[in-house]
């Protein structure tokens, strides 16, 4: 390639320039006369007339047309010319050399230059192919291997199914590109993306509570069968426990009434149970099942309310008071009232109280 180029640069170029300059005026004239860039054989004088050759329009057109053909052939048959198996590019340049001998005007020279550019570009690409000859990399083979890696499910021959995404043959799984990405990311040193851990502020209101209730109702139907056996062992809720306690204490009260309040509630063996007794007793009073009063000694006493009297209680005779007790008072009361045994026996199941 380089040889032909050198020849042209040295040889003909020097001869041509004066002539080209000289005919500049006439070239312009010729341009106006020309209708277009075609292959029309002009009615010009033959190539034998030496002095007329320079401005023979027919010859000029012929030369330009040949140049254009050469340029087109290089561009159209690019792949072919690139192949290392032939010398077509060299042939094109040889052809161009011959043409160049007849070039007289700037316009033709411009075409020649254009051809040279296209040819050298191709030449460069051809050279680069040679460069990696020993390290050939075939992108088609690469693609095939990669498809296998992606998990391409190659359909058997004769299979009628044309799955989505399967052009020629085979079906790519949904996560095909994820597989590649996972393997690929190992080759990258990408900075991990910054995210807020808990995500952004969620502007929607929480789902309505109705849903929760519905969900609760559903399982209860299923669990129904197991419930009875569990209930015997299961701990009763606090509310139920309290109610039971209160009832139990009412029983005691009815059995030993009327009685000094402190003698009733105090458990000399446990301060905490004393407090519990006071607590449970207060329910009796609240519900009007017991009443408290001060006796002659101004000591508090407690007595059950008769069955018939409960309704008569009414709001008018209701009073409220707050009772408190401390460890110290508890001990003093035990001493003063000489309480040795609790009147209200502690409940049999310890778990509720503790």
């Amino acid at each position: 390639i380089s040889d032909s180029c050198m020849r042209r640069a040295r040889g003909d170029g020097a001869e041509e320039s004066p002539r080209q300059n000289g005919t500049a005026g006439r070239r312009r004239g010729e341009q106006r006369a020309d209708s277009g860039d075609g292959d029309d054989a002009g009615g010009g004088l033959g190539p034998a007339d030496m002095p007329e050759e320079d401005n023979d329009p027919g010859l000029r057109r012929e030369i330009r047309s040949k140049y254009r053909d050469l340029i087109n052939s290089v561009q159209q048959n690019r792949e072919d010319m690139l192949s290392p198996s032939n010398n077509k590019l060299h042939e094109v340049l040889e052809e161009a050399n011959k043409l160049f001998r007849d070039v007289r005007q700037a316009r033709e020279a411009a075409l020649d230059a254009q051809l040279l550019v296209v040819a050298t570009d191709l030449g460069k690409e051809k050279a680069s192919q040679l460069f990696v000859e020993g390290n050939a990399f075939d992108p088609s083979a690469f693609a095939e291997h990669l498809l296998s890696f992606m998990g391409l499910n190659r359909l058997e021959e004769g299979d009628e199914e044309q799955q989505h995404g399967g052009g020629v043959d085979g079906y790519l799984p949904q996560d095909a590109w994820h597989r590649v990405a996972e393997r690929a990311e190992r080759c990258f040193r990408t900075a991990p993306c910054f995210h807020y851990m808990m995500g952004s502020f969620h502007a929607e209101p929480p789902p309505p509570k109705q849903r929760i209730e519905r969900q609760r109702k559903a399982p209860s139907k299923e669990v129904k069968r197991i419930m009875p056996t569990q209930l015997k062992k299961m701990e009763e809720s606090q509310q139920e426990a309290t109610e039971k306690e209160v009832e139990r204490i009412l029983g005691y009260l009815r059995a030993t009434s009327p009685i000094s309040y402190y003698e009733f509630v105090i458990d000399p063996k446990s301060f905490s149970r004393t407090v519990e007794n006071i607590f449970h007793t207060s329910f009796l009073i609240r519900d009007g099942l017991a009443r408290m009063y001060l006796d002659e000694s101004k000591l508090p006493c407690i007595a059950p309310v008769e069955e018939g009297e409960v309704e008569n209680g009414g709001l008018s005779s209701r009073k409220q008071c707050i009772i408190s007790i401390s460890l110290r008072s508890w001990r003093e009361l035990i001493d003063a009232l000489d309480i040795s045994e609790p009147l209200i026996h502690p409940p049999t199941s310890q778990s509720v109280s503790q």
Partner: protein
Amino acid sequence: MVVMLFDEGRSETLMGEEEDDDIPFTQPSTSQVQKGLEKLTPAQVDQKTAEVVQYFLMKDQKKIPVRRADLVKHVVKEYRNIYPEIMKRTARTFEQVFGLKLVEIDFKNHVYILINKLETLEGAPVRSPSNPKMGLLFVILSVIFMKGGAVKETLVWNTLKKLRVDPGEKHEEFGDVKRLVTDEFVRQRYLEYVRIPHTEPLEHEFRWGQRAELEVSKIKILEFMGELHDRDPQSWSQQYKEATTPSSSSQPSTSSQR
């Protein structure tokens, strides 16, 4: 060719980013920085550094590089007189706290990116769901590398078509493939998409972008190639040489050294 490259990159970034700063920013001298620091409390400087760090982290989500002009205009502001000191501290924070590297990839236009200082370990579990776009990018980068560093766009499109990714059609996973490859990846500096002169019709060439040069390990690509083709990576002697030569030009200094 090099000038064209930067111009293209610039016009791409300008399309999506804010306008240029009104007052052109010039790097203050060391003495100016010293004077500036004297007027501020350490807490103030720390606060501003923290703001810059946060800005970078947010911008890095999209992997779009950060321009110095934007940084000065929106974050540094009146602290611009101690800009080098802030950048020095920012780079140190990224390194020591996050294990990331702050790198200036464009010395002319002063553009920064964040990359990971640490390599991914071989057997390490995948922490987050993988991004399929990385798979696509990887294929393109591999082809470019194996073909010597620059390929015609037609080669890339043809290879992708074989993988059922057609730039002319909307892809299930990637959407507008052409835009993703020639716009997004280019803006992120993973790829360069350069016009080839004298081509009729107009053709482009793909090359590795500055981010790819810094983030992607060529030897690891070659190893994967070896696995796929069931070949010894060293059998590609030219590429192996390229992958194992410590490249001086593609590792620009961190901002702290400037």
